[in-house]
């Protein structure tokens, strides 16, 4: 499969079409595996769409005690094999991107598999097929990149750790070839103030109170 995903958070308008469409994927029917997070709703309207970045050396697969997470020949890191997954949640908390979800009652981890039922047949993943702004785009590198002024980057540094991914993040800059994540302190003060407060309905619906990635069954 030559196609991959290109994520451009600058284009994301937080409409959550991708979240709704993701539920239609046949490999995880009824459950959305994509995240659209507000940086801080009180401070900015900016949102961050997160799908699985499909790491070249996936940490989630390495930390799995049941050897349930496999990477296929297309470089897609698959959802945990159902007979094997023990619901240990190692993958959920080890993933540097905060992607895998789990459900305790089902004893199951699930994650974005780039809609493998569709993408393996050349169709766009559900999220890319509905995204109105192209924040989530599926296609070949040579087809997508020339159309964009943003710079495709598929290397992240989380502290000392380099993580190379199949999915590209479109950077609105020509400086640097990687994203460096170093535990940003932006909005932390605001967060601390809210820490003890009871969450509102909206915060719950927006997933802002979910700190564990458990999906509802």
């Amino acid at each position: 499969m030559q196609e991959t995903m290109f994520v451009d958070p600058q284009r994301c308008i937080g409409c959550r079409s991708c979240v709704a469409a993701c539920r239609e994927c046949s490999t995880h029917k009824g459950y959305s595996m994509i995240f659209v997070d507000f940086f801080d709703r009180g401070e900015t309207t900016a949102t961050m769409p997160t799908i699985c970045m499909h790491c070249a050396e996936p940490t989630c697969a390495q930390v799995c005690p049941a050897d349930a997470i496999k990477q296929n020949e297309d470089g897609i890191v698959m959802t945990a094999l159902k007979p094997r997954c023990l619901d240990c949640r190692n993958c959920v908390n080890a993933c540097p991107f905060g992607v895998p979800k789990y459900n305790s009652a089902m004893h199951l981890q699930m994650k974005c598999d780039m809609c493998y039922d569709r993408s393996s047949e050349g169709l766009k993943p559900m999220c890319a097929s509905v995204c109105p702004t192209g924040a989530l785009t599926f296609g070949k590198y040579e087809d997508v990149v020339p159309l964009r002024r943003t710079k495709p980057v598929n290397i992240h540094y989380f502290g000392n750790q380099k993580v190379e991914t199949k999915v590209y993040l479109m950077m609105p800059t020509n400086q640097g070839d990687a994203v460096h994540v170093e535990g940003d302190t932006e909005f932390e003060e605001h967060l601390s103030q809210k820490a003890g407060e009871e969450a509102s309905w909206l915060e719950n619906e927006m997933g802002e109170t979910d700190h564990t990635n458990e999906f509802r069954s």
Partner: protein
Amino acid sequence: MESTPAPQKLSYRNPTIIGLISSVVLTALVIIGSRNLENFDSALFGYTIASIVAFGAIAFRYAVWLQRPATRIYFKRGLQLFFNRRKFAKSAKSAATSIATNLVEQRFIFKRARQRWIMHFFIMWGCILAAAITFPLVFGWVHFTLEGDMGYRAHLFGFPLIVMNGRSLIAWITFHGLDISAVMVMIGCAIAIHRRLNDRGAIALQQFLLDFVPHLLLIAISVSGIMLTASSLWFEGYMYSFISLSHQALVIMTLFFLPFGKLFHIVQRPASVGVELYQNRSAEMEQAICPRCKAAFVGKLWMDDLKRLVDELGYDYRLKNGHTLQDYCPRCKRVMRGLAYAKAPDKAEPVFFGSRVGGPNV
């Protein structure tokens, strides 16, 4: 700056020894249980040898599996928590509940899908029934003797048990136990194959060797097993020895397939009892607090084990602020990455006037 995960080193020495010891122990149990092979049915010799070899192979595979750093940590911690004297009663109760709900009732499969639960119910209980009947016979642990005109006496490890009337309902069920299990397995496998041929998600992900072969083997065993009954009951033993040999070959193939692929979950799945115990116990202990949002999201003991595991695997997620990336809850990890993205660009870049080439205000 960058760090590359170290490949996992596997040693086959200890697993080989464990596998060989397991086979030797089972051989000894066969000899002892069959009273020095006195009660051993030599017609089942092929099954016995295959079972002994497969048992060693499964023990070997299990020992290799335990060498995975993640598995090893869970295995040790699970045992440590279970045998903690002060909490032993609580742990035993937790384990008993997990065995009842996860392994017997399999509520988690029901939560995944009702049809999947029905499918698995038939296959699992069919296989368990068949194994419970077959292995004691194959190992010479159970045999029957004729008493009088109609009486059948069962013997367990050479000790006589009850006598039953050969024409009674209990006798009929006992002698047709394998036929009943074969029907159960076929129903389950039919549901599974129907799903695999029709479900879009399953079609995209399945592989012939991993997902179809086990079902085909189980169906072949069941059909050939029922053909044996049909041959002896209704066709005066027509082709009996050929069917018997085919059945034996299929069973041996399946036994040798156990350590690989999908069937390995039979021996792997009980580990979920230990995992659940660990989850329950760590939920009662001190919780790890996300340094950013201050939310308690997992047990601290559990998180420390995970960080040690990630480190052992050769990853280095230490951040400049002294924390490790795994200290943060999943949501904060996503937001922090978003903030890193948002702060990366030079705001003077023309790209901020439209991200599409040839767009407005270039």
